[in-house]
């Protein structure tokens, strides 16, 4: 096959700038090189999200490296009462993203996720004779050995296996000695609803290894609702600050609860993580005031289950 030649019908050139005849003037001249503006970020619209920003940019659901700064506060919002404050329990870096950022070639500006879109830059287009650098791939191979199975499952919807099959594999009894149901290999989708939110979400509990990870993921997922509630009145360009959002969440006293195998609603955080994932069927972020009365039962229930 001949090397793909540069063609003009879509106005692509070596420089590949967005201002060509195809695009109308309605589209702002896209600065393809400006990665920051176009990358998918989880922060608030236009905000710099200082606590969440990383050098390489982050895609949804991925946590930056070494970004422990903000991880403390959201937990308070999901767990009511001083008794269940997880901030003390947080240790170490919340590093559960696939750590592949090192070694990416500067001009490819690969995100730290292997699974982020590549090639924003024009000079990646043609002629694409050379293969994308092998280095990042090899690095990934080396790194992957350090990642626990739970990390691999973090790309949403990958590998492409239907939930029915995933859940069936997860509940296969580990009879066969060669076939062990490793905790990292299971997958468990549960629905998460939030009081007042217009729709619910589904998450895979097995992609998290601790309450901290779960909590921060949920906080990210549902922060858009809180913004929505209070953001409607804002002019399009006004920005809410990070801390403002934290205040809103904190002020509303949301509490994270779950429905267990027996159909009872319990507060999240009382039992060891493994026990929680084994028994959790559904999650609900409810208003703190509604959660009163859940607390005492959980302790008793745990005791009776022993």
């Amino acid at each position, binding site marked *: 096959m001949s090397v793909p030649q540069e063609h003009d019908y879509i106005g692509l050139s070596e420089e590949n700038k967005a201002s060509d005849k*195809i695009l109308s003037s309605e589209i*702002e001249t896209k600065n393809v090189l400006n990665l920051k503006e176009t990358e998918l970020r989880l922060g608030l619209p236009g905000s710099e999200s200082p606590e969440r920003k990383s050098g390489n940019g982050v895609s949804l659901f991925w946590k930056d490296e070494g970004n422990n700064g903000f991880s403390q506060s959201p937990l308070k919002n999901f767990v009511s009462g001083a008794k269940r404050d997880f901030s003390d329990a947080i240790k170490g870096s919340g590093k559960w993203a696939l750590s592949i950022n090192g070694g990416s070639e500067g001009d490819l500006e690969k995100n730290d996720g292997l699974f982020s879109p590549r090639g924003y830059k024009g000079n990646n287009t043609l002629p694409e004779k050379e293969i994308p650098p092998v280095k990042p791939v090899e690095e990934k191979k080396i790194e992957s050995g350090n990642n626990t199975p739970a990390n691999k499952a973090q790309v949403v919807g990958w590998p492409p296996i239907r939930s029915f099959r995933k859940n069936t594999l997860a509940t296969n009894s580990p009879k066969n000695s060669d*076939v062990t149901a490793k905790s990292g290999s299971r997958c468990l989708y549960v629905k998460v609803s939030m009081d007042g939110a217009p729709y619910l979400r589904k998450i895979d509990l097995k992609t998290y290894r601790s309450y901290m990870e779960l909590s921060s993921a949920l906080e990210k997922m549902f922060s858009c609702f809180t913004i929505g509630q209070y953001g409607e009145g804002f002019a399009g360009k006004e920005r809410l600050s990070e801390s403002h959002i934290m205040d809103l969440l904190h002020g509303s006293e949301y509490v994270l609860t779950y429905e267990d195998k027996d159909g009872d609603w319990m507060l999240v955080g009382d039992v060891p993580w493994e026990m929680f994932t084994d028994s959790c069927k559904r999650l609900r972020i409810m208003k703190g005031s509604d959660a009163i009365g859940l607390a005492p039962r959980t302790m008793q229930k745990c005791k009776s289950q022993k």
Partner: protein
Amino acid sequence: MAYSFPEEVLEHVFSFLSSDKDRNAVSLVCKSWYEIERWSRRRIFIGNCYAVSPEIMIRRFPEVRAVEIKGKPHFADFNLVPEGWGAYVRPWIRAMSAAYPFLEEIKLKRMVVTDECLELIARSFKNFEVLVLSSCDGFTTAGLASIAANCRNLRELDLGESEVEDLSGHWLSHFPDNCTSLVSLNMSCLGSEVSFSALERLVARCPNLRTLRLNRAVPLEKLSNLLHHAPQLVELGTGAYSAEIRSDIFSSLAEAFSVCKQLKGLSGLWDVVPAYLPAVYSVCSGITSLNLSYATIQSPDLVKLVSQCQNLQRLWVLDYIEDTGLEALAASCKDLEELRVFPSDPFGAEPNVSLTEQGLVSVSEGCPRLQSVLYFCRQMSNAALITIARNRPKMIRFRLCIIDPQAPDHLTHEPLDTGFGAIVENCKELRRLSMTGLLTDRVFEYIGTHAKKLEMLSIAFAGNSDLGLHHVLSGCESLRKLEIRDCPFGDEALLANAAKLETMRSLWMSSCSVTFGACKLLGRRMPSLNVEVMDERGPPDSRPESCPVEKLYVYRTVAGRRVDMTGFVWTMDEDAATARL
């Protein structure tokens, strides 16, 4: 010239046309043929529930007896479409309950069905016979009870892999004692145990029962009872295939199977205890379809079973079969047409079984009729793909999933462009292709050049630039469905090929680089397309126009923009830059 046949004659002629394509062609000949055809069409297939409205369907085709509708995009199977996106069947059921009182069949895929819908179906259609719900959700077993209780002539109830809120197994007991019409029952997706005696009596009184797919909760010890009542079964899905190892259970099971001389399909087989597998050996020579994809048994046991099934045409299996097992398969099952190998441990960091590209190569060499492949593995090479392509030029469906989505050729470390290029170049009849691995724009050039019959293409983590997308959109003449995730495709190719999108059913792009501005432009320029942006960060106009959207779903429609969208979906159209209900 008045040399035309009387209408009745034409109608009779048209009654032999079953294919939609033929009927659509007939409708275009002249006005009177259009009229005759539309009154005589009995079956409707709607590939995208938002491409047309119930009102339009009913207005054109007043005498429909069977409807098949598909809803959510395919990537919904992998949780890429958030809950609440849409695909509600309710407006369809409501409209049809008034307009089609004689409706007999409803088949739905990836749609949201509520108990209310099921009750409405049960009440509205006196001749209702067939309900197939594939990968649907939103209903409970209470809805099933309504169907069981009220549909006097129910022939087929197939729940596919739907997500049913399982309140209890009591629904099955709602089949009245005088219900004897069942031909097919598939309840394999349900968790709760049904009353076994109710099940047994139901099976016993339905002499035409051909397909019975049990759920996992039906115990193996009782399977032989059911088989004795239904020796005419053609397809059986067992429950959990495990029990205490006892010779009496084994012998009654073996004896029960030996009586099922018509059995062609076997599935279920959860929790298999290998000692019980020989009970099915007597039927193996007749088996053409075998679904072992939940059977967590090792290669030797798998091989023993599979090598007895010389007439096997379709095999779904876990990767426990390994390369050695696939070699044995290739040696014994010369009629094999479809192979699907699923991963037993997809999230593990290291391979847990010895299944590589070699297994697929062996099957491609040994099975001359192989035409449909779904293969999960952890490594691939261009050489293997080229060999497979040359061995099987009649391949129709080829879906390869490498667990690491950007894995290069494991021997040469090059991209897998040439391998997939060989597939599309050799397999001229290829209709469906899913690719993974390290792939550059080059592979898309091959696809655009050669894949002229390709109807559905799935791409993930591939390509370098818009040129890749452009090759596909401009070259693949038969393309109907294109789904893309995590690729660096942006605005240029999409806008340059906007007209192509009108010839396709749908385009899905998520985590790519298509900007909000481009989506707006596309929506404005192409009124026959619905350009839907999904973004859970909030309204797209609260971010710069150059900001990429999270998810884009574009589909052609004659029904205009939909009005049932939830809070994270926006349609780009002429009326407003963003319009949302």
